[in-house]
Structure formats: C-alpha cells, structure tokens
C-alpha cells in the first residue's frame, strides 16, 4: 500500500485552512487551542513513517483494504451501455468508507493523549465506525445522533451500543445531523482537555477538511490503479455522493491532477430542488459559515440555517465541506442533484441486477451514473464510489417499496 497518501499536495489550503475563499475557522475562541493542537499533531503525523505504517496496517488488517473494484455490466446496460465500475467501500469493515477517517483520527487521538472521543452521526455509519475504533483502541465514546435519525437508523443505534458507545439522541432543532453536530460542539467546548471531536466528514474548521480528506485519499489512490488495470484507461467520470463530502473528496483526489477525468458529485435532491425539501447545498445553497467553515449553506435570507431533507440520513445536511465549494468555484468538479425517487430506483436496480444492496447515500451516486452513462453512451467509462452498504436502510426500503409481509 502506498505510504504517500497523507503527504502534502498542491491542493492543500493555506495556513489558515482556506481553499480559495472557502474554509477557515469560524468558531468559538475556546476551541481554537484544540484545533491548533490537532493541526500541529496532524502535520507531524502525515509525514511520520511510524504513523503512516500504523495507519496502513489498520486499514489492511482491520478495515480489510484494499477494497475491491467491481464491474457492474448489467447495471451499465441501464446507463446507456457505458462501462460502470464500483469502488467497493461497502465491503470495508463496518460497511462504509467512514472507517478510513475514523482509524486515522483515532490514532491521532492516542497521539494527543486524549481518552475520550465524541462524534456526530447521521446515518449511523460514522457513529458505528467511531464506536468500533474506540472499542479497538480502548477509548471512551459518545455519539450524538438526531432523534429523527435514531428512529430511521435504529439498527445502527443498536450496533453502537453493543460496541460500548453511549448514544445520545439530540432533540433540538431539526433533530438530524446538523443538530447532532451542534450538540457535539457544545460537548467539545466543555470537555476539550481530555476529548477529541472525531468529525465524520470533510467539513468543519481547519484542519478537519484536510485531514478527513487525506484519510480518505486511499480510496482514490487504489481506484485509479485498479481501473487502469481493469479497463486499461482512466475513467471519463468519477461519481460520488456528497453529504459533507468525505467519500467524494477521497476518491476525487486520486484523479484531481488528471484533467481528462470529470469529477461529479451527486447531492441529495429530496423531493426536487424546486421544492423546499432537499439537501442540495452546492446546487442551491449560498455562501455562509456553518460549523466552523465558510462554504455553501442552505439558509434563508436572514442567514438562519434551513433544514435539509433527504431520504438518506447520511446526506441530510444543509452544509458541505469547503474544498467542494472551491472545486465548484474553479470548475474542477461539478455537482448535480438526485431526487429521493431517482436514488431509490437506482438502489433497487443495483440490488436486482448486480446482487449488491447499496447504502441509500451511495444510491445517489448510482443514480447520477445512470444519467451520466446515457450522456456518454456505450464508449463511456464511469467509476462510482459505492460508499456503503444498504443493510442499515432496510426500514427505509420497506417503507418506500412496501416490502413488508402482507398482513
């Protein structure tokens, strides 16, 4: 496995964490010491062979990397006949890409000498991954989860509790991911001396967007090599779903210096972006500061943050990581909305045609691939980041498709 994946890149932000006009630190003074400390430890760790070896070993022996690259020809037939390859992050231990970042940050937590970890979670995948790493490394773990999400992802609540984490349902605001982050930040301010906030996506104040991205760069590094081996060329398009943006930024970075490769992020379009019920931040948001960084935000004209809506708990967030805002600005990546209905169609299609049940989040990327494939035609080559598996989404599927046992 490549050891260079955490190395500084020409795409890193400035010292204050700015990607162009985005990012930075819009957060309470009380937490600046903690993010400074985190940044200092990370800058050392990312070039420390011992840290890199330990991270690589955990990814291999615990998470099960490298993840497979699987061609999906029957699915591709529905995508205008384009060749579609799936990067199988669903096969990682705990069932999604989230484990990559969690293992990296848990190692950093140990280096910083902190004993307690807090995290937010939407779909529960980041919470489960965090609870898992804490069990492995002997850290105390508290996970904040919106009450709405504890209901629609109850299986993951049970998993976290089994792994020894305390799950705290958040009952304020929209009772989803955004409010879970608020509550985690409140906890962090009060307990910052012994606590690391293990943020689950490539958003938040500097250095989180960089370090979360870097811990996921392995996805793109592996995928680039695998697709060159299997298809003999670079893909025309790399497609990934975008909630906060971690799986997308991880796979995008493998191809960011390949100008022929289009990077396409698929956002949760909910009921449609012409309605108020969606979470398509990059498509329909405006610049603002939320949870520590300047980025696109869904908000009203007073700057009150809007509630996002998506069938997918992991994408149900009115903000997005600042590097995506920058990639959009400079035209290096494009972002498109996918409705709940399109995502659920793709969810069913991949299950039926390929025997792979994707996470509802990842189904947004698949739905995007169906459209992109039709645009590209049979010569097209598409790489989809299959960020997670759909076991956690059975309640959602039962409701959407009416799969319950007839009474």
């Amino acid at each position, binding site marked *: 496995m490549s050891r260079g994946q955490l190395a500084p890149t020409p795409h890193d932000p400035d010292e*204050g964490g700015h990607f162009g006009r985005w990012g*930075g*630190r*819009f*957060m*309470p*003074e*009380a*937490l*600046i*010491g*903690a993010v400074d400390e985190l940044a200092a430890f990370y800058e050392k760790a990312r070039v420390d062979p011992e840290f890199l070896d330990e991270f690589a070993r955990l990814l291999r022996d615990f998470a099960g990397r490298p993840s497979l690259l699987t061609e999906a020809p029957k699915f591709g037939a529905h995508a205008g006949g384009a060749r579609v390859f799936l990067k199988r992050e669903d096969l990682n231990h705990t069932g999604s890409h989230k484990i990559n970042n969690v293992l990296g940050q848990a190692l950093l937590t140990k280096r910083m000498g902190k004993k307690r970890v807090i995290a937010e979670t939407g779909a529960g995948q980041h919470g489960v991954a965090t609870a898992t790493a804490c069990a492995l490394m002997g850290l105390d773990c508290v996970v904040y989860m919106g009450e709405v999400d504890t209901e629609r992802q109850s299986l993951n609540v049970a998993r976290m509790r089994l792994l020894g984490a305390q799950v705290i349902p958040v009952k*304020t*605001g929209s009772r989803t991911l*955004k*409010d879970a982050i*608020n509550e985690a*930040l*409140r906890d962090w*301010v*009060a*307990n*910052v*001396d012994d606590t690391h906030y293990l943020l689950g996506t490539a958003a938040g104040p500097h250095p989180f967007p960089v370090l979360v991205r870097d811990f996921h760069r392995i996805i793109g590094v592996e995928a680039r090599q695998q697709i060159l081996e299997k298809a003999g060329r670079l893909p025309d398009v790399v497609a990934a779903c975008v909630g906060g943006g971690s799986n997308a930024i991880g796979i995008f970075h493998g191809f960011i210096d390949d100008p022929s490769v289009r990077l396409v992020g698929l956002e949760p379009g909910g009921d449609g972006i012409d309605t108020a019920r969606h979470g398509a931040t990059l498509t329909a948001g*405006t*610049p*603002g*500061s*939320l*949870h520590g960084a300047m980025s696109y*935000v869904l*908000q009203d*004209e*007073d*700057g*009150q*943050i809007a509630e996002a809506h998506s069938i997918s708990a992991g994408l149900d967030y009115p903000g997005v990581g600042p590097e995506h805002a920058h990639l959009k600005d400079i035209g290096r990546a494009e972002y498109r909305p996918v409705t709940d209905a399109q995502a659920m169609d793709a969810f069913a299609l991949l299950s039926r045609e390929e025997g792979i049940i994707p996470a509802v989040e990842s189904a947004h990327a698949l739905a995007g691939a169906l459209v992109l494939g039709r645009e590209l035609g049979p010569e097209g080559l598409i790489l989809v980041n299959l960020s997670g598996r759909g076991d956690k989404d059975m309640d959602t599927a039962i409701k959407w498709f009416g799969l319950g046992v007839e009474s």
Partner: protein
Amino acid sequence: MSGLASVFSTCRAESRAALIGYLPAGYPSVEGSKDVLKTMVSAGCDLVEVGLPFSDPVMDGVTIQRAAEQALRGGFRVRDLFGVVESVAAAGGRAVVMTYWNPVLAYGVDRFARDLAAAGGLGVITPDLVPDEGAEWIGATDAHDLDRIFLVAPSSSGERIDLAAKSSRGFLYATSVMGVTGARDVVSSAAPALVKRVREHTDMPIGVGLGVRNGAQAAELAAFADGVIVGSAFVSAVQDDTVAALTEDLATGVRQVATPA
C-alpha cells in the same frame, strides 16, 4: 472615547463593576423583548446585550437555545433587531449586540454595521468570529464607529489573548468557564486566573460571563472583573416574571465592596 469606554469609566469612577444583562431580541416577542430590556435598564443594567436569535447557537446552553427557538418560531426577523436596539437607546440605556456570524454575513457585513450604528447600538460581540477571520468586520466596524468585542477563553494562549485585545475596542469578553451559556451554582475558579492573565496583555476593561445567576455570584466576579455579564438567568427571569428583582439583586452585587482576595 468609544461609547463603551464611557460606560466602564463611569463604573470605574464609582469603584465598581458594570452590570451587563443579556436578552435575545424577539424573546418572548419583539415587543415583549423591548419591555423586558426597558425594565433591565431602569432596574440597574449599565449595559444590555441584545442577542440575535440564530438557528444553530453552538455556544449556548439549553435556556438560551429555547429562547432563540421561540423568537424564531414567533417570526423574528433580523431587521427587527434594529428596532429593539433603538428602544434601548430610547429608554436611556446602552446596547451592544451579541450575534453569531452567519446572520451578519447574510445581512451584509457593512450594511449590518451601518444599520446597527444608525439604531444607536454601541458595539457587537461575535462569539464565533475570531480576529483571524475578522478583516472585513474590522473594516466595517471602523467605518461605522462601532466597538467590537472578541472573546478570550481559559484555553487561549498569550498570543491569542494579545490578538483578541488588539482587535477589540470597548471591552474584552472573557468566558469564565470552558462551556456553553447557562446558569451555574458556583462561579468558575478559572475566571480570576484568566482575568489576571488578560490584564498582563491589556488595560482594556474585561467583562466576565457564563454562569452568573445571582447577586452573590456577581459580587464575587465584581471583585476582579470590570463587567459582570449575565445571560441565561435573565431568560429564566422572563419566564418567572422576576426581571426587575433579578436586576436589582445583581446591581447590588456589583456594588458590594470587593473582599480582598
């Protein structure tokens, strides 16, 4: 002299700390908040902090969160803030605004400073804007002669205290505990140490807040701080209809002779 400097110099002349009371605009309603602030002013607040209700108040505990939610549910708009500030000035009081950064961005940074100054506001406290990101804000507040108050915390390094002091005008806000707003039973032991550290960096008046809920606690803080900031306790007092009594208790507290440490 900046508008706020005169508040503190008056109190210093009386050898006491200033009493600074916080209330979210629009709580319990826009008109109701004007009435409560008027009571706070007439019962002894030297300065009031008018909060701008925000959907995602990460530095606030549950009391202020609920008040902000109620204000927003009641239809509070950012433009209503300026009327509330004007009402404080009309009642003979002095007001600063406490706001999260995103509503200022959305309103327009310069426009916000301009409209607040026009309403008679003296300054702004920005709990989630650090001076490092404050260039545009510093320009706008300078242009409209508004004081700006950055925060320091027990976790702030000497270098960061310096930066906050250099970037602020009027006073410095010291958060006495590591935590969010909310009344507490005991005043933090970190507060005197923090104020002592800050004094090594600046002569600027220092307001101390987070957790104060009665006159006895106010007296404790007044022994070493230039301003005693009280928030959640006022919100609770609105619910209990005891705003005047709380203000008087706190005003007595800040006038108690400081016990030598």
